């Protein structure tokens, strides 16, 4: 199992800050597709994924226990 984190507009749109999902062995691209199917109206085009607090390319593979954060466009500062 991996832990998914949702922030900002994604948190409000999904109605949750986190959830568990059985995505071990899947790529980041497959994770994004899974989220897109589960929440069809989420704006995912500009979302980046961080695995264990590091931005990860779409080819990275998820492992048991990973924390995957969906990062919508940032707007700090």
């Amino acid at each position, binding site marked *: 199992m991996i832990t998914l984190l949702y*922030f900002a507009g994604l948190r*409000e749109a999904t109605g949750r800050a986190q959830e568990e999902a059985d995505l071990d062995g899947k790529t980041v691209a497959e994770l994004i597709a899974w989220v897109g199917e589960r929440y069809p109206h989420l704006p995912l*085009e500009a979302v980046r994924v*961080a695995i264990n607090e590091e*931005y*990860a390319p*779409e080819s990275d593979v998820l492992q048991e226990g990973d924390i995957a954060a969906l990062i919508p*466009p940032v707007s*700090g*500062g």
Partner: protein
Amino acid sequence: MKPYEIVTEPLDPQRYADYVLRPEAGAVTLFTGHVREWTRGIRTLYLAYEAYVPMAEKMLTRIGEEIESKWPGTRTAIAHRIGELRIGEIAVVIAVSSPHRKDAYEANEYAIERIKEAVPVWKKEIWEDGTEWIGDQRKKPDTQGEKP
């Protein structure tokens, strides 16, 4: 205080300026980003900031490391506040000290540019008639270069 931190209380910029000062520093630049009342013709009542706190602090630390490698001899501290902020309040503080002034200006501006592209902090504007999470939805940033 930590030199790279996300906080929920009002920021005191002087603490970060004091932190970076050393006997060999001839220049300190201190940037503060404030909540503006008017943006694109719309009046903001207040802002709400949210962060992925552990990753944001890790990214701020990395930006500091990038700066100390690009501009040797500088010392940097960066803090971002989250939660609800009123007009005029400080959202972000960047302090850079350097033996010479040019580096202190360049490194400070580099820090705010990097924060705006890479640090997981989000701003929600609250107006009289609505709210919106701010962020450029149109372009997908390049994530390939982000891993160390």
